[in-house]
Every structure is written in structure tokens, then in C-alpha cells.
């Protein structure tokens, strides 16, 4: 066993390694189910196509589910809070992200703006790459200055919201009760985000306490960046192939 593989094995045993591995599994699962999805609508989409009228709790649930199982949003969130440990900072950044994605989610669906979901999702993948490089200090090293991290979180939040909006538009929601259902979905997205954030923070909390955190922080961000590139590539190819 070489020293490199040994270091990787050690890294995989840290809480951070487990977290990234978990997200990786979720990510692959997401890619596979997307690839297998067929034309006949069942599951959430089938349910939405079959219902009409204001359904607060079901749409709240769907919003939360979308966030908790949305590996792209979770990866970005992980990147954003990777080096944040004060609750005050975490809430500022998460609020900025929420403001960003809520506004474009509501605006996108209500104005029925149709953007290619592939392009939006590719940008979301790149937002993960951006944040990972940001964490690694790449911009300071390359360009000698630090781009505003709060502004980046807000701006990328806007793109994540467009991503959510294209998914909802694809669901063919009934115009009957649309605004109420949309708001319920949005509230659900925020609740789901808080639940996911809670879980991520606990794992990161354990990891941050070990000395391995600073040793493996760089590698972890490289892994996150890799996943971001895969996401972006997958969506870009989809844009040209599909």
C-alpha cells in the first residue's frame, strides 16, 4: 500500500470524508434516476399532474423533499458553510442564499420564464466549482484579491432558484391554486434547507474538532469541485444531446 492510498483511506474515515461520500452516493443515485426516468409521469410529477387546487402541506413537503434530496443544492450549501463555524455567519450566508433562490423561484414560475433547465443546472454545477475554488483560496492566489463571498452566494442563489423554477414548470402545475402552492413549495424549500443544513453542520462540527479537518480540507474541496464539474458536464452534454 503506497503512502497516497493510505492517506486517502485515512481521509475516507473522517466525518468529512463520510459526508462527501454520502453526497457522492446521493449524487450518483440522482444521475441514475434522472437517466432512467421515462415519459409516463409517476411519483411526484404524476401526483402533481393529477391534482388541482390549493394543497398547502403536500406542496410544502414536495419543496422540502426537493431540497433534501437535491444534491446540487446540498453541495453548494456544503461549500458555502465549509469554513463557517459561527452561527451568525452561517445564518447570514444561508439567508442570502435563500433570498436569492426564493426570488427567482417565485418570479420564474409566475412569469413563466422558460430557460433551458440544462443550462441553468450547468451553471449550478459551476457554482459548486466556484465555491470550492473560493474555499481553497484560489482567487487570492491567482488574482491577488478575494471576490465578495456574500455577493457570490446571493448571485448563485438566483441561479439555484431558476433551477427550482424549471423543475416546477416541468411538473405542469394546475393554474388552480398555483400561487398558494408555489408559496407552500417555497416555504418547504427553506424548511428542507434548514433540515439539511442541520445535518451537515453536525457532521462538520465533529470533523472540525479533529486535527484531520485542516489536513483534509483542501482535498475535500477538490472532491466537491470535481462533483461540481461532473454536474456541469452532465448538464451541458444533456443540453446538446437531449
Amino acid at each position, binding site marked *: 500500500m503506497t503512502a497516497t492510498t493510505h492517506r486517502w483511506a485515512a481521509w475516507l474515515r473522517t466525518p468529512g470524508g463520510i459526508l462527501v461520500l454520502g453526497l457522492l452516493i446521493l449524487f450518483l443515485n440522482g444521475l441514475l434516476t434522472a437517466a432512467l426516468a421515462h415519459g409516463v409521469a409517476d411519483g411526484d410529477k*404524476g*401526483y402533481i399532474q393529477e391534482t388541482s387546487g390549493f394543497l398547502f402541506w403536500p406542496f410544502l*413537503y414536495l419543496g422540502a423533499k426537493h431540497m433534501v434530496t437535491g444534491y446540487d443544492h446540498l453541495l453548494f450549501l456544503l461549500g458555502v458553510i465549509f469554513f463557517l463555524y459561527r452561527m451568525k455567519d452561517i445564518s447570514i450566508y444561508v439567508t442570502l442564499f435563500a433570498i436569492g433562490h426564493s426570488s427567482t423561484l417565485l418570479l420564474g414560475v409566475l412569469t413563466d420564464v422558460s430557460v433551458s433547465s440544462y443550462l441553468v443546472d450547468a451553471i449550478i454545477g459551476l457554482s459548486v466549482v466556484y465555491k470550492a475554488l473560493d474555499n481553497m483560496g484560489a482567487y*487570492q492566489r491567482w488574482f491577488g484579491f*478575494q471576490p465578495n463571498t456574500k455577493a457570490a452566494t446571493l448571485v448563485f442563489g438566483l441561479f439555484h432558484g431558476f433551477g427550482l423554477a424549471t423543475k416546477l414548470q416541468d411538473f*405542469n402545475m394546475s393554474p388552480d391554486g398555483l400561487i398558494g402552492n408555489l408559496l407552500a413549495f417555497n416555504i418547504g424549500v427553506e424548511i428542507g434547507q434548514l433540515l439539511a443544513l442541520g445535518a451537515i453542520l453536525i457532521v462538520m*462540527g465533529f470533523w472540525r474538532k479533529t486535527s484531520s479537518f485542516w489536513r483534509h480540507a483542501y482535498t475535500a474541496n477538490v472532491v466537491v469541485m470535481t462533483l461540481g464539474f461532473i454536474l456541469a458536464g452532465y448538464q451541458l452534454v444533456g443540453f446538446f444531446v437531449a
Partner: protein
Amino acid sequence: MFNANKPDSSELPSTGRLLKSTGIAVVIASALLVTVVLPAEYGVDPTRAGSLLGLTEMGRIKMQLAAEAKAEEASVQPAPVAPAAVVAAPAAGVASETVLGVRTDETVLTLAPDQGAEIKLVMEEGARVAFTWTSSGGAVNFDTHADRPGTPYHGYGKGTEQRVEGELVAAFTGSHGWFWRNRTGEPVTITLRTTGAYSEVKRVV
């Protein structure tokens, strides 16, 4: 090296606090799993909370749609299953009232609780059909839509009604029609009257 402030160990939560948080997370997750996720995904609702929130219906519908999709996949599309079984008794006895390509049909079908059915008309692009459908029981879910090879779904409108009267204008050459789902809990009979330019009435589901 990083874009980060290195925290002092006193600034990090204690192990005890982290363990407590983990415990709380497990409790919250279990509670949500039982009261929200199981009802909404599988229609399994041991606490009745899901029914209260309307989530159990979601799970029930999902399970049913999944079962229907599976059944459909299993029956390897046997050549057109005698559509005449349920459909198309030309109205008022007068055999096909084909005046200048305009015809009239009355189609009657019965839906058991939770059953779905779909009637499609074969139409040319721009063709018009005046239609009326009524449910003998309560309001049923409907989805008026079209498809053609390459376009699996084109929606005209959907909702929950007992009677709908309107005109269907074909957006493209293909199949255009109605899907109904009976969620009333009682069997209902749906009567569809169509008058216009179409070549065939077929039952798809």
C-alpha cells in the same frame, strides 16, 4: 492557504453538545419519517398525521401510479386492445353523421373508485371539436391534453369538475383528448359527447 479564519478550539461546539445535537437530529428525523415521509411516499400512515395534512393521499396516488406503470410495462403493448369494448356508440342511432367530415359520437364509460381512463380523438392540426362531458357522480379530476410521436404531452387544461363544455382546437396533428381519474370514492359514469372534425375515437387507457 484557505479563504477561511482558523477557529480557536474554544469557539467550536463541545463534543457533548455535538452528541446532543446528533440525538436531537435522530429524534426529529424519526418523527418526520413516520409522520410525513412514509405517508407522502408510500401512503403508510401509522400516526394519522399524514391524513390530517393531506399527505397520505399523495402516497396513495404515487403507489397506485407506480403499480399502473408497472402493469403497463408488463403487458408488452398487445396490439390495439379492442377499443370498441367500451367506446363509441354513435349517437342517436343515426349511423355516422358524417357531414363534410364532421361527425358526432357519444362515448360512455364507467370508472371505479381510483380508476383512470383516457379517450383520444385523432385530429388534424387546426381541426375543431365541440365537446361536453359529465360525470354521473361527484367532480372527477381531468386533464385535457394531446400527444403525437415526439411530443408525449401537450396540455390544454386540467382540474376537478363534474361537467365541462368547450371546444378543442388541435395544436398539431395527433391524438387529442381527455384523461379522467375518479377520486370520489364511488363508481361514476362519464358521458362524453363530441362533434367536429376527427377521424377516430379511441380509448387509450
